[in-house]
């Protein structure tokens, strides 16, 4: 028992340290760790290639892949540019109005698309619009990153931790709408109000050239309306099917991959270019982490952890959940929330096996992992992306700026999640 548990734990812990240190790309660490784990398992006889393949949650990978292919097709059509230009025109160049519109658009898009994708597509147009207006894009970029992290918590497909949690806990799309969406809605409005206050100086200045945004032509910004329409129709059907997937006993993963297949058949894009935009490194990283955690499980490590945690089941589950929100949030602010989620899933399952009611804990994990990423400039990939883009503008986003604007948002959204978690506990 110990002879397999200790070396397999060592492989996992070393891999996590390397992933968090960001010295080596996380997917490379993942592949190496997974290979070591399977190799060790074969030598010591606790893990096999077949068991490693079974450990990979293809439901998660399929859902992510399907959504990534759909977005990859939508990306070059200029649809996101079109929405941002529309927002700029509707705002008539008034900073607060533009701020609320772009922020809300980002929140809603992030509910259905990956946060990183949403920010990658909205932030560049935002910079362009702000430069034309003669305003600093900084408040807008920070708001977009924070709100995309926040919006992503609302749905099953909104961000990778939710996909993982949904798959592990067997939550349906509607489960997320009932439990997570209301809390995100409150957090979203609170974030907008808080940011409006934190950026009150920047947003109260009249832009140097408000009229220029009216020269933006939404029609011209949409480069390929035909493709955009096709992909959006299929994406819409897929989202409708998500609402009813549990009734027909079809998995979200099957819906997403079917939608990707349908869109590919309809649009017939340049498949090589489309697949280049799919984030294979993320999918590989997920698969590798699954193989590693599967190895830990096979080596009996998780059973040992559950044994240790049994003492915890005497803590009232309500407080256990609230503490989980904050612990996961602080961890997610410092390091990537995907490995944290993957590592905690078996622990929560173990607590369930030890007799605790774990359904509320899943939601605590989702809130902590989602809202925690807002805390620091490196807390989520979306934050890193807007910070990198801002380096090309006159007002780069620095870590200290983030700590003054992002950290309050993390604290407020986690506080809101905790309060609502306590108030609504019996519904979880």
């Amino acid at each position, binding site marked *: 028992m110990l002879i397999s548990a200790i070396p397999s734990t060592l492989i996992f812990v070393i891999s996590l340290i390397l992933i968090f240190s960001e010295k080596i790309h996380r997917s490379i660490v993942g592949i190496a760790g997974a290979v070591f784990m399977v190799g060790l398992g074969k030598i010591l006889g606790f893990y096999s290639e077949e068991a490693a393949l079974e450990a990979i949650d293809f439901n998660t990978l399929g859902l992510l892949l399907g959504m990534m292919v759909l977005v990859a097709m939508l990306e*070059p059509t*200029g649809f996101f*540019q079109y929405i941002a*230009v529309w927002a700029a025109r509707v705002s008539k160049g008034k900073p607060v109005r533009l701020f609320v519109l772009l922020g809300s658009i980002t929140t809603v898009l992030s509910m259905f698309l990956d946060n990183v994708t949403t920010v990658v597509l909205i*932030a*560049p*147009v935002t*910079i*362009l619009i702000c*430069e*034309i*207006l*003669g*305003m600093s894009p900084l408040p807008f970029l920070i708001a977009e990153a924070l709100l995309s992290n926040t919006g992503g918590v609302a749905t099953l497909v909104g961000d990778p931790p939710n996909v993982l949690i949904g798959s592990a806990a067997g939550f349906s799309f509607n489960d997320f709408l009932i439990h997570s969406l209301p809390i995100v809605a409150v957090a979203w409005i609170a974030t907008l109000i808080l940011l409006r206050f934190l950026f009150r100086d920047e947003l109260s200045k009249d*832009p*140097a*050239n408000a*009229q*220029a*945004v009216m*020269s*933006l*032509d*939404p*029609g*011209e*910004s949409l*480069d390929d309306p035909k493709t955009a329409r096709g992909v959006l129709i299929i994406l819409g059907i897929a989202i409708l099917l998500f609402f009813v997937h549990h009734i027909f006993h079809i998995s979200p993963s099957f819906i997403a991959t079917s939608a990707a297949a349908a869109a590919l058949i309809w649009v017939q894009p340049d498949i090589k270019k489309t697949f280049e935009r799919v984030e294979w490194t993320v999918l590989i990283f997920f698969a590798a982490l699954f193989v590693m955690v599967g190895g830990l499980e096979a080596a009996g490590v998780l059973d040992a952890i559950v044994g240790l945690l049994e003492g915890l089941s005497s803590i009232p589950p309500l407080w256990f959940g609230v503490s989980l929100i904050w612990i996961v949030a602080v961890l997610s602010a410092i390091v990537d929330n995907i490995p944290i989620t993957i590592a905690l899933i078996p622990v929560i399952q173990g607590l369930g096996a030890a007799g605790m009611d774990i359904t509320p804990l899943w939601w605590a994990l989702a809130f902590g992992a989602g809202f925690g990423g807002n805390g620091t400039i490196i807390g989520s990939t979306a934050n890193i992306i807007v910070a990198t*883009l801002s380096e*090309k*503008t*006159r007002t780069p986003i620095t870590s200290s700026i983030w700590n003054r604007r992002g950290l309050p948002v993390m604290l407020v959204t986690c506080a809101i999640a905790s309060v609502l978690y306590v108030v609504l506990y019996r519904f979880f």
Partner: protein
Amino acid sequence: MIIRECMKQNVVSIRETSTIREGAAVFVKEHVGLLPIVDENTKLIGVIGLRDLLALELPDFVNFVLDVDFVHDFGAVETSRPPASMLDQSIETLAKPAITVHEDSGLLRAYALMLQHDLHDIPVVSEDGKLVGVASRVDIGTTILSAWIRSE
């Protein structure tokens, strides 16, 4: 034919001790697109292009969007000026490493380098790295074409 025979030998260059503002003045006065930066022994240490200075007014964000044809009015961007503090910095903060050709280089090799690196002018250096000339695409291209006409 080699590049020495078609390059401009009367090269305008600036010293590495110049400020950005002084560099800009040379661009305006000489009406050139590229300035080689040299040390006291006319050894080439880098180049600065008109494009690198203009980037101070029109930063890279334009390249973030697929195309900018839907923006009919650049608004505040049109009237933005780089801050004075920026203009007083050393020209070396904007300098790029030079892609050069040796004075004995063939014309098509020089042209191929320019195409590959998207250059309009290329500094020509001697054996010991000293700046001896600059050749533009037009200098090189017309010299190549002149051989066609002579051979008729």
